[in-house]
């Protein structure tokens, strides 16, 4: 075992088979293994020295969790969780194993789909046509061009873009919620008017994604849609060892 600790990727059911040919974080990718007793296993590798949020390592973390989730339920750990040694991980499994196992079963057969709505920067013409304030400032800027006028106009455009995307995003959430088991508002992401995750049954994911795309097509002048999923249920596991309210931010 390395002296830099044990990197923990996820908790899975005992008997889970690790994906073949897939390494963990570090360069070269650290070999991944499972440890534990009872119904739960922790998926771990040696932690590389000087671990940082490198693209390579973020993708290794993500890819491993994706592949694990394809094989069965997963409690995904946040990126960068490192235990001092294997013994600490085993103690944690022993202490909280039954709680984790119960949560794992709740998430079985379910996936996270993340939905982001961005301002529709492509639809400036529609924005100018539909937003009185923007039109007025645009005309003012044409009559008296200048830095001040441009700043006012540009700010109004930005504000209107955000407002339209946020409003469409809220409608999208209402539209999609009936197709999901749970909804979790995500942390604000710069540039995004909406960042929300949905917990969706495996059999419903295609229909869910299709519905989101239909909505986006009908609202392309208000928002640009970014869909990611089906993903491991990052947003539907507690962010602390203590229980937290479901859907809490």
């Amino acid at each position, binding site marked *: 075992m390395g002296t830099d600790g044990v990197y923990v990727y996820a908790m899975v059911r005992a008997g889970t088979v690790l994906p073949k040919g897939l390494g963990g974080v570090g360069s070269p990718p650290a070999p991944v293994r499972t440890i534990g007793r009872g119904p739960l296993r922790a998926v771990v590798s040696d932690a590389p020295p000087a671990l940082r*949020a490198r693209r390579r390592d973020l993708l290794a973390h993500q890819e491993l969790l994706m592949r694990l989730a394809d094989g069965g339920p997963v409690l995904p750990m946040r990126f960068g969780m490192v235990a001092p040694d294997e013994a600490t991980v085993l103690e*944690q499994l022993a202490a909280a194993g039954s709680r984790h196992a119960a949560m794992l079963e709740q998430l079985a057969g379910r996936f996270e789909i*993340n939905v982001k709505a961005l301002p529709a920067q492509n639809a400036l*013409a529609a924005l100018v046509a539909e937003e009185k304030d923007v039109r007025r400032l645009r005309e003012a800027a044409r009559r008296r061009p200048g830095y001040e006028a441009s*700043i006012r106009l540009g700010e109004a455009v930005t504000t209107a873009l955000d407002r339209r995307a946020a409003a469409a995003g809220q409608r999208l959430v209402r539209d999609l919620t009936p197709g999901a088991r749970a909804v979790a508002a995500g942390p604000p992401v710069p540039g995004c008017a909406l960042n929300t995750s949905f917990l969706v049954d495996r059999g419903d994911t295609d229909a869910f994604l299709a519905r989101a795309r239909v909505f986006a097509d009908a609202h392309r002048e208000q928002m640009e849609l970014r869909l990611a999923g089906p993903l491991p249920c990052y947003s539907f596991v507690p962010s602390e060892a203590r229980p937290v309210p479901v859907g809490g931010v």
Partner: protein
Amino acid sequence: MTATTYYSDEVVACPPRAGTLYDVLELILDRGMVIDVFLRVSLVGIEILKVDARIVVASVDTYLRFAEACNRLDLERDSRSTTVPELFGGGAAKAVGKRKVRKAADTVGETVRKVVGGGDEEPEDQDGDEAEDERRERPKKRPAPARKSSRRRVEA
């Protein structure tokens, strides 16, 4: 599970269902299970990524680019038409606005990169910057629809 992620206004499929790293970055970094007794490694670089994106979005430069793109829109002739949005389909704005905004993003990103590069002596930093690249690349995924704007001209 072979679901494919599409972007709403693209014909081309974006193959990874995880979206780009940009799409899932905050899930990997800010969501997921945390266990108190495990340490969270000190993740130098995350804040830089976030700050970079914020600067691009909120900069005065972006305002000015938007204003310029907006001013270039040729709406006057059709301003009475109720179907202005349909007629234009955002095509003209797309071609102009996107290019402008992208330029702004590139410029600011470049500045941040310089600042970051200067302040961080770790030789492997190239690697850490890649996630930043992914963010900046995001708007480039879509080809500038130049053909649309020429079609508009014919119709007008």
